[in-house]
């Protein structure tokens, strides 16, 4: 079962990284050079059905891969995703509402935290601050575009085989 879950994480992580990083696809998802944060949506949605600890590792690795291949500060996305998973973990008792508006709210909240983290580390590491000096307008597009992906990904993630694969969390606890 563990092997199946690892395989599941690998496959779904690879697909999302493939889309997110646009290594081979020349930013086909980009609107005005703004890409959605698909991986964040995936982490938030998967957290509802997967094991917490596994999700922490998954978030760290995928975040680090994005950092390595996207030219960001190495560790920034990993840091951010770990923070998101930790917050979800600490407030999981209050996150039992499994509806689409609630997922949208979580993603929106996470994106605002991301903005704060980006500016915080931009301030700390002044040398590369200019990289994250995006306008609020483009970040607003980024937020909207990311939210746009939530319904689609939730339809893919919450299919029966995936829920059954991770049933340990759903029914075992």
């Amino acid at each position, binding site marked *: 079962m563990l092997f199946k879950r690892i395989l599941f994480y690998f496959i779904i992580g690879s697909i999302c990284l493939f889309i997110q990083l646009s*290594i081979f696809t020349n930013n086909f998802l980009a609107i005005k050079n703004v890409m959605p944060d698909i991986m964040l949506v995936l982490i938030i949605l998967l957290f509802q059905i997967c094991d917490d600890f596994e999700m922490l590792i998954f978030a760290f690795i995928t975040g680090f891969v994005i*950092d*390595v291949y996207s030219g960001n*500060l190495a560790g920034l996305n*990993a840091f951010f995703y770990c923070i998101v998973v930790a917050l979800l973990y600490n407030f999981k008792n209050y996150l039992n509402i499994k509806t689409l508006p609630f997922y949208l709210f979580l993603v929106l909240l996470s994106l605002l935290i991301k903005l704060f983290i980006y500016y915080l580390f931009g301030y700390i*590491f002044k040398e590369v601050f200019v990289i994250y000096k995006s306008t609020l307008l483009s970040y607003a597009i980024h937020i909207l575009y990311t939210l746009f992906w939530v319904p689609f990904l939730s339809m893919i993630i919450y299919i029966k085989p995936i829920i059954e694969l991770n049933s340990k969390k759903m029914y075992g606890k």
Partner: protein
Amino acid sequence: MNQYFLKNKFTIFFIIFIVISIISMFFTTSSFILTPKVIFGAISYPFVKAYTFVVQNTLTFFSSLKELNLLKQENVRLNEELKQLKEAKFKLELLERENKELKQMLKLKEEAPYDVLPAQIILKDPTNLYSVITINRGSNDNIKKGLAVYAIQDGEKIIVGKVIEVNFFYSKVMTVFDARSSISVKELYSNYSGIARGDAPTSNLLQVEYFPNEADIFFNDIFITAGFGGIFPPGILVGKVVDVQKQNFSLYQKITLKPLIDFSKIQYVFVILNYEITEDYTESSISE
């Protein structure tokens, strides 16, 4: 200790990951060569390379399939276009040929000293050596029995035959090949004349009778209509000599002509309307 670790593994790993992330960010902005980013990049490079290989080849494969399908569709379309162009070219050639023929006919019609009526051949029977053909003009167009018919072939007037049957909308023309046909002919450059008779369906040649023995006739000499009978105007090409038999004890020599008319080439003929018809012309004897 072990139990403590298991109980708090989430928190422990979270702290480890946060520390790694911050250290990594710190190293990114410093001048270290072996930063965590470089190390992680080096470790993950083979996987990314393999991933690139698989994904790119898969994408290329599907792209090729799509292109193949498009090429097939384009090939079908181009073939269809080529077929249509060939048909159009064929039609154009036919029209060009017809136009050329009609222009030639019009020119010769204007030059003719008698009124002629152009007609289209609507039926010709090659199995019977074209001894009778049908044209699309009848009594409605003032066609009468006995009228002479000629054609334009390679820019020359060539004798076809004469009308033997007239209906309202069409007429039948007995050609020079028919055994019943006889035309007064003469050699092009001399005044010697004779009577050329058809030989169909035995052969497609004409036998010239009553041609004086003293005339010197050679192979490929041309014979034209003599115009004695009153049906055919003089000067229309009939045929060329293919055989000459001089007879010592006869006044006449036997000459065989090959008619110049080629029905496989012509589509239109001219009916001579107002050339004087001899009074001794009868239906039973349709010879000139």
